[in-house]
């Protein structure tokens, strides 16, 4: 199948591309192509029942992305200001497309995001791919004063944000003077990540790679009045879904006795990105209880379902929960 970007470019770069009749025809063609993509995806779901679910989900995601690509390119050609100035407007337009809404439940969704959050992620990836510019949306905090309090803390703290909200969180924090330390699975991509997400002062953010010494390194960092930011969710090697939650940072916050904050984000119905903060969290009952608190917090905001794993998140593997480490609470939660 031809690359959607090539097809979009062909339709938009010829000599009549900017003329009114072509733009009308282009919109009409977009509708037809979107419908065709939708039916191919749905037919695939019907006829590929025997195939693995992940495969059909991957295939549906492919068609979902094609439709988003086409629509974003169309919006760009019709109204150049939409992309550069108001990603929310584009997102609102995309959210009203029936084909996308219908494909969403079948598309591969590794973070288990709600519709608008999932759409934003696809839209952002697509716009970055098409125009090299990731759409940035400002965060509307539920407790702005608490956010400022975190940014102005005179001591170290641990801030936990799920992978899907990591960029929003670190960007918002980067505009304050607080020194930051972030954990990265792949530190070599951190510069691109910061650039794409318009993170302020990227060179000032210390990076700690994920390995078995990561928590030990944090015990050292904790003495330097820095905000330690980390995404404690991890991908399951079997399913590829990010539905595991590592205990590491909860245990660390407890061990070094620094305030622990939870951040989570979600798009509301008006496509405004809402940021929620909880903290400082009481972890005196144990790391597992704090992780449970985080799990519930995320479920109530971004709707993500996480399973706590008794393992450093560099392992990304499930392991039975040991009573010795987690105590009675873990024993009663075994297998959940």
């Amino acid at each position, binding site marked *: 199948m031809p690359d959607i970007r090539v097809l979009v470019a062909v339709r938009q770069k010829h000599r009549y591309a900017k003329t009114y009749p072509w733009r009308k025809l282009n919109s009409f063609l977009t509708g037809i192509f979107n419908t065709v993509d939708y039916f191919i995806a749905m037919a695939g779901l019907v006829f590929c029942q025997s195939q693995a679910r992940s495969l059909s989900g991957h295939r549906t995601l492919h068609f979902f992305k094609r439709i988003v690509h086409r629509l974003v390119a169309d919006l760009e050609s019709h109204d150049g200001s939409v992309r550069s100035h108001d990603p929310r407007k584009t997102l609102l337009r995309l959210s009203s497309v029936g084909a996308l809404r219908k494909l969403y439940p079948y598309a591969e969704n590794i973070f288990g995001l709600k519709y608008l959050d999932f759409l934003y992620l696809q839209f952002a990836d697509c716009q970055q791919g098409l125009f090299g510019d990731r759409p940035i949306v400002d965060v509307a905090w539920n407790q702005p004063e608490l956010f400022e309090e975190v940014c102005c803390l005179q001591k170290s703290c641990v801030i936990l944000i799920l992978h899907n909200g990591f960029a929003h969180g670190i960007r918002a924090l980067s505009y304050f003077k607080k020194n930051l330390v972030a954990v990265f699975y792949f530190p070599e991509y951190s510069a691109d990540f910061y650039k794409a997400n318009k993170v302020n002062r990227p060179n000032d953010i210390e990076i700690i790679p*994920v*390995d*078995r*010494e*990561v*928590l*030990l*390194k944090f*015990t*050292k960092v904790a003495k330097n009045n820095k905000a330690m930011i980390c995404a404690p969710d991890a991908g399951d090697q079997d399913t590829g879904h990010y539905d595991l939650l*590592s*205990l*590491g940072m909860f*245990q*660390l916050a407890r*061990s070094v006795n620094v305030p622990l904050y939870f951040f989570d984000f979600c798009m509301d119905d008006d496509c405004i990105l809402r940021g929620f903060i909880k903290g400082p969290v009481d972890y005196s009952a144990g790391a597992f209880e704090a992780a449970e608190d985080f799990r519930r917090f995320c479920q109530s905001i971004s709707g993500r379902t996480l399973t706590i794993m*008794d*393992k*450093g*998140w*560099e*392992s990304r593997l499930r392991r039975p929960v040991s009573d*010795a*480490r987690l105590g009675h609470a873990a024993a009663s939660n075994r297998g959940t």
Partner: protein
Amino acid sequence: MFDVEQIVEETLREILPGEADKIKPDKKLEDLLLDSLDMLEFKMRLEEKLNVELKVEVFENFATLREITSRIATALQRP
């Protein structure tokens, strides 16, 4: 005076009860099934037992248990 080597090995055995047979002075930490959480616990428990704050460097560079013991002994001797 307590035996640092014994305390190091004991602590590791507590953290990795299933690996007790493999815990030997020449064994490297990387060869044991320790994850980041275990490493943190290892450090915290040692600090508690020895009543001393240990630097992260003590555990770095894939040290063997003997090397760790020696680094801890050096740390204990410092005023």
